[in-house]
């Protein structure tokens, strides 16, 4: 099966903890993304990765950092989570940096208590 996979589906943690979310795509794409979707379903791009190079880094807090071992994997680490980090984090991929269609994973829902 070719798709975008994310783990975990759901994560509950406390303020100040560190969390890490995994994303893997089996589509053979070169570019991957992380989006944050808030409680109002507003989607905002956080990072774009093309061939392991960070190419777009929107003004996200420094406690967020993408981590990639190869072009099929793009993880997201959050150091010292804060309540406003509660959201759904969506991973996506596209064939290359100039392609149009993005394929999304099912998301990881984070709840910070």
């Amino acid at each position, binding site marked *: 099966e070719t798709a975008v996979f994310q783990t975990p589906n759901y994560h509950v943690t406390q303020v100040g903890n560190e969390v890490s979310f995994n994303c893997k795509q089996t589509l053979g794409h070169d570019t991957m993304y992380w989006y944050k979707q808030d409680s109002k379903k507003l989607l905002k*791009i956080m990072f774009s990765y093309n061939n392991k190079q960070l190419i*777009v880094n929107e003004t996200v807090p420094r406690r967020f950092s993408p981590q990639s071992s190869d072009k099929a994997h793009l993880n997201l680490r959050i150091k010292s989570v804060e309540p406003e980090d509660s959201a759904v984090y*969506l991973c996506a991929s596209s064939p290359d*940096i100039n392609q*149009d*269609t993005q394929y999304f*994973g099912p*998301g990881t829902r984070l709840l910070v208590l």
Partner: protein
Amino acid sequence: QQQVRQSPQSLTVWEGGTTVLTCSYEDSTFNYFPWYQQFPGEGPALLISILSVSDKKEDGRFTTFFNKREKKLSLHIIDSQPGDSATYFCAASPLNTGYQNFYFGKGTSLTVIP
């Protein structure tokens, strides 16, 4: 600044009716406009897209219209079905500019009543 404005925020239609969602944008460099459909618990999935060189694209019951002069686009769903109940996002992107940065609208929550 909201690059892509979408309306309405929510919409309820009867089964068999026509759904119309609209979006407007600001940046003239945007030339690619996809519509995404998102069901609860899932990520968005591409529904239909249009390039700025076209004014209409149709795919089954879904049609998107584009008006370059007015910087507006719309999504029409004919014969709406309960299974169409989802959140719909329009997006805009400047293709082939060396990076890819999608701007999403805030979404429209559609409910189709049987």
